[in-house]
């Protein structure tokens, strides 16, 4: 154990989490650039295509960082992640399709935007992660 009181395992998880955080920030930042750049900074389609390419690259980097992060977790932590991801996927499919049906059927005057589903996935993932962690805590 190090002087910081953290085990080698915990240090590895912390390092991987930081890398994942940085990769996620890069992806979100490049997404913001690709979204708002054409509106406020440039008009060239070439630059927009390049910004999208960078954003996709950052996204792939984030996926790889996430896989590395999950692989390094121990079996309980992996189980907690599995529960959180499973719940997020289920909620996304059920409520995403329900939202789409509400729009196509004209039941309510709403616009089914993908960002609603992404937001729902994030909230579900975080809440499930906290609940599952407390359950095993």
């Amino acid at each position, binding site marked *: *154990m190090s002087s910081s009181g953290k*085990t*080698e395992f915990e240090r590895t998880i912390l390092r991987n989490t930081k890398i994942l955080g940085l990769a996620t920030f890069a992806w979100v930042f490049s997404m913001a650039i690709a979204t708002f750049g054409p509106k406020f900074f440039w008009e060239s389609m070439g630059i927009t295509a390049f910004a999208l390419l960078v954003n996709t690259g950052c996204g792939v980097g984030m996926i790889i960082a996430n896989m590395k992060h999950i692989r390094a977790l*121990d*079996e*309980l932590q992996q*189980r907690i992640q599995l529960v959180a991801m499973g719940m997020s996927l289920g909620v996304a499919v059920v409520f995403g399709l329900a939202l789409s049906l509400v729009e196509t059927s004209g039941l309510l005057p709403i616009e089914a935007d993908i960002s609603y589903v992404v937001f729902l996935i994030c909230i579900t993932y975080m809440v499930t992660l906290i609940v599952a962690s407390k359950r*095993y*805590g």
Partner: protein
Amino acid sequence: MKNRFKVLRAERDWTQADLAEKLDVSRQTINAIEKGKFDPSLPLAFKAARLFGMTIEQIFEDEAG
């Protein structure tokens, strides 16, 4: 499944962090195993058995059995 993790750890005067480091898992996992909230996988159970110098049956007890 019942286990003797807490007793065996205490006998060796190890903290949960010590045991977690020796088994290469998180403290949360050791805590969950000790409280019976989580049953470890077979590889982790074997690793613990090797560490304590015992057989798996001496550490874990099947409550259904």
